[in-house]
């Protein structure tokens, strides 16, 4: 069991490192550097910067040095909590991001929990009551989740709600709480608005997981140990919930672990469509404006969030499967 945790932890570290490298590459990709953009902005507003000033700035920020040195310096600063400055906003990146990162976390985790809460019972039901009306109905909903990309779904729902109900279902807060400081009331307002975005985000993954649970459970239901359980005299419900569901839970949980990056990813676009105050809209604007420290920081943070979420899912998987705990090769 320990070796499993250690392995997954090392993998998480490796992934984080890979993400940091990729984020750094993204920061460096656009032509020119921080100082060029600074100069461009200053000259646009009328002032200018001399060559010597530009050079000293470059030395100050270490922009003359080879890339790996810059990378290490950047990582060093990041680990101390300094993500650099946003040129668009003229403020430290951390300030710009503010609550947005936490809200991204909340939305992503809400979608994850919703996926669990929906896919597990529906998947079980679909397998046990195969070919029933409920099964077909869920299959249909599943197709919608499968076929319609999340941002399109958000768009369609937005339009339908507006056209037929006159509602604007975008945003995560009612107008009065948007700018207000945090309070219980604001948190409650958030909870009230959370289900719809979380559902839109979760639908595709839920559909996929229902199929996985249904397929695996159907396989397990045919196996001998289910017959044994029935032969002992257990009620049908107990037979199904205690044994085959438990066995089918493994592939379900590991599929769920790999869903998290997709949820974080999806939240970006969905946030744009629904105007949610997450990092998504900020990332897009930053990329278009080539505000690279902001963009790179967001990519890094999103990556770290994903890695943490996946690692937690791995721990849950380990807790579920006794074979991992006892080091048996599954």
């Amino acid at each position, binding site marked *: 069991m320990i070796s499993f945790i250690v392995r997954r932890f090392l993998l998480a570290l490796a992934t984080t490192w890979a993400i940091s490298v990729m984020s750094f590459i993204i920061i460096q990709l656009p032509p020119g550097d921080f100082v060029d953009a600074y100069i461009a902005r200053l000259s646009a507003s009328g002032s200018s910067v001399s060559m010597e000033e530009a050079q000293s700035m470059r030395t100050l920020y270490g922009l003359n040095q080879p890339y790996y040195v810059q990378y290490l310096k950047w990582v060093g600063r990041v680990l101390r909590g300094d993500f650099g400055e946003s040129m668009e906003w003229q403020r430290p990146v951390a300030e710009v991001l503010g609550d947005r990162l936490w809200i991204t976390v909340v939305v992503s985790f809400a979608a994850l929990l919703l996926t669990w809460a929906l896919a597990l019972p529906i998947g079980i039901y679909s397998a046990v009551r195969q070919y029933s009306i409920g099964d077909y109905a869920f299959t249909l909903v599943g197709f919608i989740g499968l076929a319609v990309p999340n941002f399109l779904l958000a768009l369609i729902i937005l339009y339908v709600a507006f056209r037929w109900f006159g509602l604007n279902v975008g945003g995560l807060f009612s107008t009065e709480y948007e700018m207000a400081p945090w309070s219980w009331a604001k948190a409650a307002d958030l909870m009230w608005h959370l289900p719809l975005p979380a559902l839109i985000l979760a639908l595709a993954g839920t559909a996929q997981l229902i199929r996985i649970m249904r397929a695996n459970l159907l396989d397990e239901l045919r196996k001998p*140990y289910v*017959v044994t359980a029935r*032969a*002992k*005299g257990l009620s049908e419900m107990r037979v199904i919930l205690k044994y085959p569901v438990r*066995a089918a839970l493994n592939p379900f949980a590991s599929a769920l672990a790999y869903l998290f990056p997709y949820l974080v990813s999806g939240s970006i676009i969905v946030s744009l469509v629904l105007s949610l105050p997450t990092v998504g809209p900020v990332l897009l604007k930053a990329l278009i404006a080539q505000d690279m420290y902001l963009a790179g920081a967001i990519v890094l943070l999103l990556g770290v969030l994903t890695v943490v979420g996946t690692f937690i899912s791995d721990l849950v998987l380990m807790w579920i499967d*006794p074979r991992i705990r006892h080091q048996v090769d599954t």
Partner: protein
Amino acid sequence: MACAMRQIPMVESTMSSVGTPILSIHNLAVHFAQDEGLVRAVDGASFDLHPGKILGIVGESGCGKSVTARAVLQILDHPGRIVDGEIWLDRPGLSPVDIARLGPRSPEMSAIRGKEVALIFQEPMTSFSAHYTIGNQIGEAIAVHNTSADRDRVRLRTLDLLRLVGIPRPERRIDEYPFQLSGGLRQRAMIAMALACDPRILIADEPTTALDVTTQAQVLDLLRALQKERGLSVLLITHDMGVIAEMADDVAVMYLGRIVERGPVDQIFHAPRHPYTQALLRSIPSTLAKPRSRLQTIEGSIPHPYNRPQGCPFHPRCSEKIAGRCDRDVPDPVLLGGESAVSCFLYQSTPAAAEGRPAA
């Protein structure tokens, strides 16, 4: 024509007691409606299990023996259904119940499973769930029929059961997972689980097929000891004639879903009547045979389940078939004194036997 109607030798065999059978199956028919056709897995089987006796059901793979076992407990795999017949279970102090009439999910059926009739399976590895300890799974078998028992009592009883079946150091084993036990120990654990609620009938579906020979012997010894100790009635299902010879009191020979012959074990082995039984016995390799003599086989192969032959199911492979009779009609079991019966047109019953009276 070589074959002739044979007269039944009046065998005064050591018959099993003629008291009330504890389990009585009449004309059981179990059908599986698959996409590709209808499979008549059991097609009119009748036999009785007497209290305290071991009845062996023997036949090749696919003849329907396992399906019969599952039908008794109504745990047939989908899409199997009991379409005809009766399964009478005799209960002390209560009126007998026809299991075939009970719904598979009914509480009455759940009350019978594990408590009155228990089943042990061929493959102990896959028959246990890998996610729970054997203590958990055996304890569950106890608790489901003893709802008032508390955790400690259940645990103590589980330990007793593990000791009973000869598992060493039960205090350690009780918290282990099935994959941590060897094949023989797992099978013993399965037997312990089956005996958890003191059932009166034990059905053993190929209990030793998946085990090596030495373990096989140990498990069979255990079964026999337990059976004597507790007066269990055992339905032993196997394809191994050696196991039958060693364990069974009575035998029923099955082919393509029908019982072709049944009777006490001595009679079956020494005076088999049905051509299939004779062929089965002939095909057992023997240390007494002449060296380098050919192994006897049964001609032909088992027909495809969707392609059942008309008439007697065995006739395409039978060396003594009667053309015009065996390929048209299905022979019904003919009682031959006491508990013996054979389903074959070769045997024309005496008037006495036809009325079911023992020949005398």
